[in-house]
């Protein structure tokens, strides 16, 4: 029972962390970044590079975030900006970009699976059961991330500008907000979050050129259901992530894999604006 509860909590945290970057981009720029999976992969390889070079495993997360930010700004300028008026085409272009990034990774690192050390291995005692320590850390990471993002959006100037652009870009521009710059920074931030998320989940997986792909569709569905709000995303992660764990545990892990997708499709059919209020 305790294990099930912890499974749900940690799975929801992982989903939240992975989907946060995608949600920021969707909210401000109204487009789905299909290169998100590739950014996750880049984060994973950042971990590989940093730990291979002998640095402390905890450094991998900020390193991944930095790489992600730079990559995001470049991508926004080259690929996303020309397609702002064509959102469906933007999905396709970012998907193509994801393919390109995966191939570049193969050129540099080869196509084999790599393994990276984790900052913490082993288990911890909690709720009368032993549980994976790193997974528990992820719960903390998700909470910190949620708090930081909320602070960013509501307590900073950038956040204010971003919220204005989210609500009504034309009006925001009319008020003098440089929406182009907001979008570029946002994409960079979203990419940084994606890479950091990749770094955070690597200790539980292996690193290969396509590691981010399975997460792409799930995060995409979660973000749509979340209604582009941080509390909405947290709620969606808990509900859908929890459903996934329950189905995997009691029915079959294979059917569990599609729980999020199916539930999200159903929810969106009934409530197209997702789980947020209004």
């Amino acid at each position, binding site marked *: 029972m305790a294990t099930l509860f912890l499974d749900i909590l940690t799975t929801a945290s992982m989903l939240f962390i992975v989907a946060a970057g995608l949600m920021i981009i969707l909210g401000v720029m109204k487009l789905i970044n299909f290169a998100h999976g590739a950014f996750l992969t880049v984060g994973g390889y950042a971990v590989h590079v940093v730990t291979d070079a002998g640095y402390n495993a905890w450094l991998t997360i900020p390193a991944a975030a930095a790489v992600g930010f730079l990559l995001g700004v470049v991508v926004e300028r080259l690929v996303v900006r020309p397609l702002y008026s*064509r959102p469906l085409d933007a999905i396709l272009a970012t998907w*193509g970009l994801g393919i390109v990034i995966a191939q570049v990774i193969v050129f540099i690192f080869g196509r084999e699976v790599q393994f990276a050390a984790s900052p913490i291995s082993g288990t911890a005692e909690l709720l009368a059961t032993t549980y994976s320590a790193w997974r528990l850390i992820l719960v903390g990471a998700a909470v910190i991330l949620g708090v930081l993002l909320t602070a960013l959006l509501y307590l900073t100037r950038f956040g204010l500008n971003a919220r204005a652009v989210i609500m009504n870009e034309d009006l925001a521009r009319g008020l003098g907000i440089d929406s182009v710059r907001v979008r570029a920074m946002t994409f960079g931030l979203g990419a940084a979050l994606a890479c950091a998320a990749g770094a955070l989940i690597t200790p539980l997986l292996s690193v290969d050129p396509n590691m981010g792909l399975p997460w792409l569709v799930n995060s995409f569905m979660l973000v749509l259901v979340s209604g582009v709000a941080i509390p909405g995303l947290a709620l969606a992660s808990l509900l859908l992530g929890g459903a996934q764990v329950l189905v995997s545990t009691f029915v079959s892990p294979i059917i569990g894999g599609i729980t999020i997708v199916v539930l999200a499709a159903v929810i969106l059919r009934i409530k197209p604006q997702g789980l947020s209020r209004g």
Partner: protein
Amino acid sequence: MADITSEASERSSRQVWRTAIGAAVALAIILTAPFYLDTYMTNVLIRALFLGVLALTVDLVWGYAGILTFGQSAFFGIGAYACALVFTHWGFGPGWAIAALLIGVLVAALTAWLVGLLSFYHGASPLYSSIMTLALPIVLVQIIFAGGRFTGSSSGLSGFPTYYWSIDTWFIIAGVLLVLVASVAWLFVRSDYGRILVAIRENEDRCAYLGIPVSRIKTGLFVACGAVGAIAGFGYAAFTNVVAPELGGFLLGTESLIWVALGGRGTLIGPILGAIGIDVTSSYLSGSLPFLWKFIVGVAFVVVIIVLPNGFASLATSGWRRYRMRGVEAGDVRHGPGITLVSTSGRRADAVDPTVAPIRIDGLTCRYGSLTVLDGITVEGRAGQLLSIVGPNGAGKTTLMRCISNGTERTGGQVAVAGHEIGRNSPQKIVGLGVGRSFQNTSLFDSLTVGDCLRLARFRIDGARSFVRSGTVALPEPALEILKATGLDQQLGLESRYLSHGMKRGLELAMVLATEPRVLLLDEPTAGLTKPERTAIGHVLTRLVAEYGLCVFLIEHDLDFVREISDRIVVLHQGKLLLDGTVDEVVSSDLVKAVYAGQDLEAAS
């Protein structure tokens, strides 16, 4: 009359002949190819040909109808697995083969129909539809995994009994299938239905408001393409003797999009060549430079989407177009194939019951959250009467029209058209009841000609031909009059993007009239028109009401215009109906003056 019809049928039979000749040439190539191609190439090409059929279905759904679909591969996979499962677990032989093919096609069609029901309802955003097509292959692959030993799960099924015909025979089978499907698709997109698909892609809302059953057409197309995709998948599995979950998965689905995007969406030939070209080259390079090749394709794909959205075929077609225009002077604009106008008396004339009001609105309320836009509006329209709706900005006029024409918009109250409640019906059903609506911002189809637009407007009444292009459009008198008045009857072959603003308004009005409405909702029809154009429209509207007995609701800001042509005026203010009376009553009302001057209502009365 006789020569018009015969000319039309002559043109359509010419189209059929041209297609047949093209198909024959392609077949000839197919039949002779195995003689000069080596075994490996033939092998690879057979697979590529089946995949070409898949690309074709993606082009129809995405390139023509505008539905970004990631999931055509799911139908391919269903067909493939039907073949493998039946042959592995039940039996093999001609009877079994036919049964397996039928099972594959039926399951694919059923799945497509279900997905269509879920995704293509009125008001569904294009993003949502795409998401559903994305979810489809993912769910399918997981179902295959869940099948364990039965479906072979991750490893798939292989070595099942199949027809071990020679490679040449398989080549002919694949080639013939592709040519057949391509020919049928070619005729289809050049027919009336093809125009409808383009219209749906360009302006789905407008189609709904012309009474075109958009959801049903989209679903129908999706089902047909799903069935064809399953046939291709069946052939693929029978030839290669291996099925694996990748055949129905998301990656193949996105690859098919890449083929279509690079080849040229909406051209049919482009995607086929794109699919075959990329697949064959991948096979050849899979040994030597697999990752460099994938990189090149990825980069090309991104570049094409950004810079050349219509794919490489657009280079070819624009070159062709320049060649065709080489003798034409600048300023001369392209005209499409000719279309002839025919008059019709309209079916509705006899069915009108004079005692029932054409439209009756009762206690209509519309709220958005805590904001009440319309509050208890009650008004009745009468045949042969032009009723103007006036009021300051934000009074709720356009919202009122929206609530009348779309059953899902209002929060409360009833609307009855000719005695029929509109309930929660979608726009196309309400058009069917006899409501026609024009929009504040003219809403047309840029790439279709004037004649095509009119043909579209007649869909609900006259239907559409599936494999030929009709040469005539039957229009009721009111529509014909507008066309003559604006000079559009001389410009039937002109693409509507080239029309002047006034002509666009005229065309929209003609289109709405072509649907033979009882009630006409016009939202600021004179906005942006010159004085003479305004006068002309005024005359037309007066005649429509007087001679043809229409009931017209008109939103206007030009109060002089309103005074001239209206029979009744209704004043809206802050969502409430302030006054409903004759022109004189309203014009002389102090209340109305106060409202327009912005004074406090209490002070005025």
